[in-house]
């Protein structure tokens, strides 16, 4: 091949590769456009505060929205302490022993298990064996297990980012390992830990399959009012409406998607704000 032919193929290749990227982005654009077009008409205060109904035009999303918020807060309450504690152990205490390596491999595997399997786990263990029933408690426990690998991973990264010189300075004063972790390492790592938690939660809030499988309802006309209460969440409500043949319900689904996306954007914005605001300078 002559040099000019090779240059031409190189340029063509570059164009094709860029085009591929742009097609992917165009797909994203089409999705957003489609959802907004279908749903923006239905989006209203009545919709957000209303209850589901057989009549599409009267249906609202309030129980699902409350359910999602309730579940996410509970999931955070479970996943944060356990995840941070596990990460501290793996990163600060058990660094080189065999058991820790096994746990690490286990966590990596768990992060690639399909989410619906977690639903089956929740069904078998939380709903049935532990007798929680198809409750908010069982749902949050299931999602917490799903979120755990992500929380552990991002917490470990945040811990690792704390400079060793800070730890050394603490040890040299006679501090024990836990004192060093609690008084020096954790405060510095906290913004990173919270950012990781919010990222894990923003994935969990969109999860549908595990909650359907462990028994969340698809038609709920009341607000979940206790840990033992049955519930539904936004994505399941969206799924329900999408699966109906009537076009009006599709509009509801699209509006529901807009609400879900708004929630997601808010969560991610908070994560980014946290990260920027609290990224303290730790050393020169």
């Amino acid at each position: 091949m002559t040099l000019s032919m090779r240059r031409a193929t190189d340029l063509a290749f570059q164009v094709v590769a860029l085009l591929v990227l742009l097609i992917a982005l165009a797909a994203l654009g089409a999705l957003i456009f489609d959802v907004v077009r279908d749903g923006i008409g239905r989006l209203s205060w009545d919709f957000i505060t209303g209850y589901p109904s057989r009549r599409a035009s009267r249906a609202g999303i309030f129980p699902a929205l409350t359910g999602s918020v309730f579940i996410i807060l509970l999931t955070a309450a479970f996943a944060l302490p356990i995840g941070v504690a596990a990460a501290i152990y793996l990163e600060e205490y058990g660094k080189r022993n065999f058991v820790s390596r096994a746990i690490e491999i286990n966590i990596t595997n768990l992060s690639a298990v399909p989410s619906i399997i977690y639903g089956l786990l929740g069904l078998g263990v939380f709903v049935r064996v532990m007798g929680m029933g198809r409750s908010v408690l069982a749902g949050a426990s299931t999602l917490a297990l799903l979120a755990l690998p992500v929380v552990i991973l991002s917490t470990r990264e945040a811990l690792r980012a704390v400079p060793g010189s800070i730890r050394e300075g603490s040890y040299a004063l006679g501090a024990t390992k836990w004192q060093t972790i609690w008084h020096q390492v954790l405060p510095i790592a906290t913004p990173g830990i919270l950012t990781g938690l919010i990222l894990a939660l923003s994935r969990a809030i969109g999860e549908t399959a595990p909650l359907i499988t462990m028994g969340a309802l698809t038609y709920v006309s009341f607000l979940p009012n206790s840990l033992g209460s049955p519930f539904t969440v936004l994505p399941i409500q969206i799924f329900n409406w999408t699966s109906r043949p009537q076009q009006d319900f599709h509009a509801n689904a699209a509006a529901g998607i807009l609400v879900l996306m708004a929630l997601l954007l808010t969560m991610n914005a908070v994560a980014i704000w946290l990260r920027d605001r609290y990224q303290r300078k730790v050393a020169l």
Partner: protein
Amino acid sequence: MSVATGPTPPSLGNIVSQRELTPPASGPCKIEARGMNFYYGDKRALQDISIQILPNVVTAFIGPSGCGKSTFLRTLNRMNDIIPGTRVDGTVLIDDKNIYGPGTRVDELRRTVGMVFQKSNPFPKSIFENVAYGLRINGMAGTRTELTERVEQSLQQAALWDEVKDRLQDSALALSGGQQQRLCIARALAVKPDILLMDEPASALDPIATQRIEELVYNLKKQYTVVIVTHNMQQAARVSDYTAFFWLGRLVEYDRTDKIFTAPSEKLTEDYVTGRFG
């Protein structure tokens, strides 16, 4: 071309003889190593170190980079324990107690043997909290008034009080390099150690800040036993009473500073202090 072969580079000898020489110390030694070997995994980094460091003097460890002087310093407060795979063979005694013996409380050891690092490492907290931290975690904090007094005392000892007394709540990271290092010294002194280990404390500082640190070191020996690692021979000559010369993991020579720099016994020492290598 002939090379000057006098055992003394005139500069170092002069530096030493210009100082007021502390008379030779006597009495029980503060720190003693007997046949100590140190390993990073399989690699032996320190070989057969035996030394007796005396109380209330400044002892300098000198030698070319990688000779093991910092490693040996860090064995004295067991900071090397933090690095996985390290091992100590032999005895290290402080106040006649083997610090590597079973039942040694490492955290208590590190309180009594303070350390200042080459690159100052203040915590990302206020100036006050930096000094108070050591007191709090060792249960030495007392009441609020007592704590404030102790913090002030330590900052005075480190010759930093006047510069920071009006801004104790400011972040320690806002201080200059030299001030940060003095803060680290104050922090170490707050928990009332007997011994102060300093690992090239002025190597990252400008000459004026260095001078202040050196003055401080010279004054501290009245109350503490100071061991300082330095790659700067003039600094060793200025500041120390005894000097130990390390090379390739061995202790080559250990004697009073004036002797090391004017009439060393070993040829290797002589070559090093006259600048023939390192």
